Structure formats: structure tokens, C-alpha cells
């Protein structure tokens, strides 16, 4: 599927039979899927198109991205509505040289990412820019089993002029100009949630971003979760389930799995670590990135060891701020 879907990342939409065949091959039975980060990483192949959940510094599946970099994945096409330091790490490590998104920097607090600039301006990597809703429509069409979604933005702009994939038509009902945005069905989606059961029934609190469409659109879903709860707990409030088990292929329990980013209601971003990171890589997008990767990605023996490098103090501070969203 990889090559095929990589093309689909470029607007080469799957035929319906290809899409159905890829899904028919998946085991959708009610079964336990709990694995380790390392095992989950083997579900992603070089050259795959990888959809990334969350947005900017929120519910970023950092632990899974960290594991993919450690596993030496390469030539990934990554797609996310808004990209932060997760994109830096994917480019800087060589895991990806192609990003599909609407915004790519570390965060407005730190100006423009020198890592993104270095890779894009030197042609080492490619950044396909879509409008935020454009990315959303690509995932939504994919989630609905449709080849495209109509949309009214991007028209008239250079964002559209630069994209060969969308098609502008005259609406057969109103005669108005309408843009058709091609579906994106990633080979794999990486999504982090507050809780799910061993089957993959996921309940998300607070901001959902595009994760539901992303999960339904992808041909494979890896869930990382702050904690695994019982299926009984899920069944007591089924209207809180946002992603059904049968579109999930692996479940990994990873506390603080978004660090140094935030997980709604659990912890806010670890801005001290983020600022140190940004100072390092924006000071020197090559050497600084190598230093960061060596110390924080390749160095630690486990995700817990990575968290230890961030330090208990910052973890506790982030958790305190995270829970405070529920204070009255």
C-alpha cells in the first residue's frame, strides 16, 4: 500500500475498490491489541503516509513519533492539521522529508522554526501547504469513503495555485465555483488519547481536533493512551467513545505520551523543555538538532527515561496546570 498511498498523499485518490480491499484485509473483530511502543513502531513501514493526531502542541502522539525515529523509519509522508516540534523532529531525524499541513513551526512564541526553514529552503524536504480546513476536508473525505469533499475556501489564493491536487468545478446545482478536495487515506494514523480500552475504544476529553476523521480515514490506527481502562467503563458511557475499536490496530499505554506537549485535562505543555529545545535547534538547525536527538531521542533506554530527563519538577508542574482546566 505504501507507494500507492504515498501517491494518494499527492492527490492520487484510491479507487473505491482499492479502499474497500485495504479495509477488508484488516481484522475488525473485538480483540485485545495492547502492545509496546517498539512493537507498534513495526506497524509503520518506510515510505508510508502517516497521519498525526492532535494539533500544534496538543495531544501530539510524541511517544509514538519518538519510537518511530528510534526505529529508524524513513521516507515517511506526514500529514497533520498544524505541525509543531513534532515536524522538526521528523525532518531533523530524516524520518520524513515530506509534510502535508497548513502551518509548520514550533509555536508562535518562538517565531519561525529554523529546522523547517533549513529543510524546506535547501530543498532537503517538502512542505505541501493546504488551508487548515483543506487538511480537514482531505481527512473527512477519507473518513467518509468518498473520493473528495467540496469546499469554498482556498479559491483565488496562491495556496491553491501551488497545489496541483484539488479540482475546481462549477457547481451543477448553483453554477458557483466550488473546489473539490481529494481524500487522504493515510497508511497509518498516530493518535494519543486520555483513555481507551484494550480493544481500542477511545474516549477523548476536550479538544478533538481532526482525530475522529483521521482515525476513520486511515488504513491502520495506532493509539497511544494515558491509561487503559476496562471495556466495562467504556460501555457505561458509550456516547463518550469517539473512536470505535474496529478501526484501531494497536493500543499502547504511555503516561505523559505527549510530552513535552500537552494532553487535555492531564498536563499542559512543558514550556521550559520546549524553550530549551527551540533555543538549541533554532540556534543551529543541524548541530542543535543532532544534539537534541542524541540526548533525548536516541539516548534514553525508554520513554520513562526520556521523561526523567525532562524531570519530575516540570512533569508535576505541567500536570498541575493540566488538571486546572477543570477548576471552576
Amino acid at each position, binding site marked *: 500500500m505504501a507507494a500507492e498511498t504515498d501517491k494518494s498523499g499527492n492527490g492520487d485518490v484510491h479507487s473505491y475498490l482499492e479502499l474497500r480491499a485495504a479495509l477488508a484485509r484488516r481484522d475488525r473483530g473485538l480483540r485485545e491489541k495492547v502492545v509496546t511502543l517498539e512493537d507498534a513502531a513495526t506497524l509503520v513501514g518506510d515510505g508510508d503516509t502517516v497521519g498525526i493526531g492532535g*494539533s*500544534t*502542541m*496538543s495531544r501530539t502522539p510524541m511517544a509514538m513519533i519518538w519510537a518511530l525515529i528510534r526505529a529508524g523509519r524513513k521516507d515517511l509522508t506526514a500529514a497533520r*492539521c*498544524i505541525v509543531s516540534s513534532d515536524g522538526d523532529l521528523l525532518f531533523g531525524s530524516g524520518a520524513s522529508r515530506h509534510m502535508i*499541513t*497548513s*502551518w*509548520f*513551526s514550533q*509555536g*508562535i*512564541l518562538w517565531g*519561525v*522554526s529554523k529546522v*523547517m*526553514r533549513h529543510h*524546506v*529552503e535547501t530543498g532537503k524536504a517538502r*512542505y505541501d*501547504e493546504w*488551508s*487548515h*480546513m*483543506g487538511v*480537514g*476536508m482531505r*481527512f*473527512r473525505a477519507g473518513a467518509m469513503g468518498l473520493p473528495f469533499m467540496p*469546499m*469554498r*475556501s*482556498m*479559491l*483565488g*489564493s*496562491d*495556496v491553491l495555485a*501551488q497545489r496541483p491536487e484539488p479540482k*475546481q468545478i462549477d457547481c451543477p446545482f448553483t453554477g*458557483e*465555483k*466550488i*473546489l473539490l478536495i481529494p481524500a487522504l487515506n493515510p497508511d497509518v494514523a498516530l493518535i494519543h488519547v486520555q483513555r481507551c480500552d484494550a480493544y481500542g475504544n477511545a474516549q477523548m476529553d*476536550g*479538544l*478533538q*481536533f*481532526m482525530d*475522529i*476523521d483521521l482515525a476513520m480515514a486511515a488504513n491502520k490506527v495506532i493509539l497511544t493512551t494515558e491509561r487503559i481502562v476496562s471495556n466495562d467503563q467504556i460501555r457505561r458511557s458509550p456516547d463518550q467513545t469517539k473512536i470505535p475499536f474496529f478501526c484501531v490496530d494497536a493500543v499502547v499505554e504511555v503516561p505523559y505520551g505527549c510530552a513535552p506537549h*500537552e494532553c*487535555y*485535562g492531564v498536563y*499542559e*505543555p512543558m*514550556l521550559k523543555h520546549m524553550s530549551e529545545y527551540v533555543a538549541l535547534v533554532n540556534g543551529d538547525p543541524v548541530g542543535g538538532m543532532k544534539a537534541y536527538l542524541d540526548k533525548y531521542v536516541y539516548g534514553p533506554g525508554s520513554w520513562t527515561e526520556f521523561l526523567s530527563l525532562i524531570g519530575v519538577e516540570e512533569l508535576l508542574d505541567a500536570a498541575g496546570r*493540566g488538571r486546572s*482546566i477543570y477548576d471552576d
Partner: protein
Amino acid sequence: MTDARQHSAAELLTVLSARELKNGQVVFAGIGIPLLAATLAQRLDCPELTILFEGGVIGAFIEPGKLPPSTNDQRCTKRANMVLGSTEVLLLLQRGYVDIGFMGGAQIDQFGNLNSSFIGDPRKPSVRLPGTGGGNDISSLASMIVAMKHEKRRFVEHVDFVTSPGWLEGGSSRADSGLSAGGMHRVVTDLAVLGFDETTRRMKVLSLNPGVSRRAVQDNTGFELLFDHDVGMTSPPTARELDALRTLDPERLFTA
């Protein structure tokens, strides 16, 4: 008591753009000064102002001193009426529920087109900027207020790249391209408050900020400005406005 004569350019921008919002409006606000100004307006004269964030928030009340680092962080949901998907909140623009889109800008041209993608030739840019985010969607579908620093390098005749469409080439070109709703309404800068000519859609000075001359505005603009038949004088920030603002952003996160 705050000395109203002492304020930063960013504070001035925030106060002046907050004044452009009306109570009861639904405003889609970007991160930075737009978020801060919309929240300021809510605290001052627009208690029923509904603020939308692209992270998926309707009707938030940001807590003083707890400004979010982006419009996708949990702090944006504080005291919100509704939290929903990013695609869903962007679709509110397309359906028409939003009165005002409110953004910052890196580079703007005479027709109010915004560039946040490339400095220089897009095929070989001197700087690759972060990109549109929701900017293209907001400016394609809503009536816009833009707040930005007034510098010659930012106010150019033609932007290097139209990330967020204003009036495109002016006249009816925006509607002709398929964008039949919305469009650039106001540009608020540290030097002036500007609008756009109804016919040509070229940028027009509506009022000058305290102590700013027509000449000064034109000198800091890379194209020939129109001036309204009766250009007004912006009234300076009041102590009440600055007090409220500094309570919201005590660390000067967005108003340094």
C-alpha cells in the same frame, strides 16, 4: 493608576483593534494580538462577544494571566460554551455563523491580501514562513480585521504570495474568483486605522493614530495610500483600556 501616555506599540495595536469589535458579534480570532484584543473587548464593552478559536472552541473566556501559547491549547477552552472539532469550527465560517475574522499579518498589500507563507520567490524563497493555518479559510469566508505593525517591508504593493485572500486584484476580482462572501474590512496598525475603497478595493486611511502624520503613514507604506475624505484622529488608549489589557497579559506575552 496607569499612565495612559506610556504604552508599547503592541499595546496600542491591541487596544485599537479591540475597539473595532461590537457586543454580540461572533468573532473568529487568531493567536497573539487578535486573541488578546478580542478578550480585552469582552472584558470592556462587549460582554456578549463570542470568541471562536480554530482549535475547536466557541465562546471562551480566557483567564487573565493564563493566555494560551496557541489557539489549539486547552487554555482556549476555559469557560467555553462549546468545544468541538477543528473542522467543525472552521465550517462555521463556511456556513456563515461568523461576523468577523480577526488575524495578525506578516505582509499585506494594497488590496489587503496577506502573506504568511514565503518571503521572496516561492519557488526559491529567502524565507519559508509557517504558512496559512486557518488564515486562508477565515479570510476566504469572513469579513476581516487585521492587526499588524506598520512597516514599509510589511505594507507592499504586491505580496510575494497570497496566503489569505483580501480583495485579490481589487474591484470584483475576489467575487469573480469564487469568494462571494467576506473580505478585508479593517487594518489596524500602530500608525493608523485603515479600510478599503468600496469600488477599487484599495487600502484607505480612515484615521491617524495620536501624533502620526499622513506623511508618516505614507512613508511607512510600500504603495500609495488612499485617504478618506475626512480622515479622523484615533483617540488614544485610556487608562481603563490599558489597565484591563495589562491584567490580561501581565507577562507581556503578546504585548512586549
